[in-house]
């Protein structure tokens, strides 16, 4: 286990160095997040629907599509000079490759969310100060779920044509449960409802994370076989 985690960390660190050196995907994702929030802000009629009613859905739609950019690039990095081949020959477990990619994707998406959340507050003027801790908690819980599944799909699709188009098409149906949970919990939090009202949704999010992390870890080695 220690060896697997060490190799995963080596891989994740390399991915993050590459990303923060090129800054292509992270900048695209951050700009995309800002633009989507802006479009939703100016594209709604504030007299028809209150911002607080729309805000949770908008937040999660934005985070989901911004995360797609991260997930798309995760294994694309390994196509350069067939580096993926080198990883598969190396004496490291396939699990460490998956966990490394997952960790790098989580950091990437977390950075995008860290920029997106203040922009969301700014544009929609929602009261998050009182619920910031639980809100960050639910963002983390849902993000782990969809990045876990997305990293697996990204590996499955990396050698296919039109991978960038296929990823959202295949992934979005799997994201419905965590998105539903995340939107429901976020709505209750922003409405200052007690956490006990959303205990069921939180359990669903946690269960989704555990189930799909286990499944993805087990399935990943088969997705990268030649």
């Amino acid at each position, binding site marked *: 286990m220690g*060896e697997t985690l060490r*190799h995963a960390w*080596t*891989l994740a660190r*390399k991915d993050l*160095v*590459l990303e923060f*050196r*090129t800054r292509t995907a992270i900048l695209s994702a951050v700009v995309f997040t800002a633009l989507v929030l802006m479009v939703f802000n100016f594209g709604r009629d504030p007299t028809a629907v209150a911002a607080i009613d729309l805000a949770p859905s908008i937040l999660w739609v934005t985070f989901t599509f911004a995360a797609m950019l991260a997930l798309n690039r995760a294994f694309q*990095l390994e196509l*350069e*000079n*067939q*580096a993926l*081949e*080198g*990883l*598969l*020959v*190396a*004496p*490291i477990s396939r699990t460490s490759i998956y966990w490394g990619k997952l960790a790098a994707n989580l950091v990437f998406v977390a950075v995008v969310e860290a920029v997106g959340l203040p922009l969301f507050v700014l544009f929609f003027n929602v009261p998050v100060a009182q619920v910031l801790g639980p809100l960050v908690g639910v963002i983390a819980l849902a993000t782990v779920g969809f990045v876990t599944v997305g990293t697996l799909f990204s590996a499955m699709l990396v050698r296919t044509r039109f991978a960038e188009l296929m990823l959202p098409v295949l992934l979005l149906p799997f994201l419905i449960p965590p998105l539903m949970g995340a939107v429901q919990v976020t709505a209750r939090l922003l409405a200052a409802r007690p956490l006990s009202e959303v205990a069921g949704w939180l359990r669903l999010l946690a269960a989704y994370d555990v189930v799909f992390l286990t499944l993805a870890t087990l399935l990943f080695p088969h997705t990268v*076989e*030649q």
Partner: protein
Amino acid sequence: MLRADGLRHAFGRVRALDDISFLLTPGQTLAIFGPNGAGKTTLLKVLAGLIRPQGGTTHVEGGPRAVGWIGDHAQLYGHLTVRENLLFWAALYDVPAPLRRARVDEGLRRQGLADRADEPVRALSRGLVQRAAIARALLHEPRVLLLDEPFTGLDLAAAAEFRRLLAQLAGAGRIVVLATHNVGEGVELATDIAFQQRGRFVSLGPRGARTAGAVVEEYRRAVGGG
């Protein structure tokens, strides 16, 4: 020791490996010659563990950790420097941390890359990238070297230096398997020679006292062209 026993593999209806068997012991260098599409790369990928054969078995003494692999791509990241790339692969191959820098510096020096070590790989010429790939493959001091067209892109001096290095490694008890479509390359290194065509070894045996010219002539008779 490196053993292949009855290897079979096909891509659709195209037979890439057809009952390939051989045994190599320390110090042996097997040069596999064959035209494009003969199955040489598939054989090396099977030996490296990249492809699971549909039939037959392989055994590499020491497992994946004992294998050094140079494929038809460099398996290096363009936006990392040569040194960063080598340090990354050294970590994945569990080269002990205190030895890593020294091992990387030694590889860079041997490949004549010491003064280019801190340049990103994408800034190097193809020949220099190939030299970096050679340095990468030797970082963990593998007992078995699998080389697919390793002279591609090397200039005459670098190719001669690499041949000297391979001879030295074989002399130190390493097993080398070298695949190329160019019969003139690597003949003088080989202790054993195989001609591969349509997935089969049409000839396999010790090189003996045959000169390079005699091997080329024999190849033309066995396979055609050359």
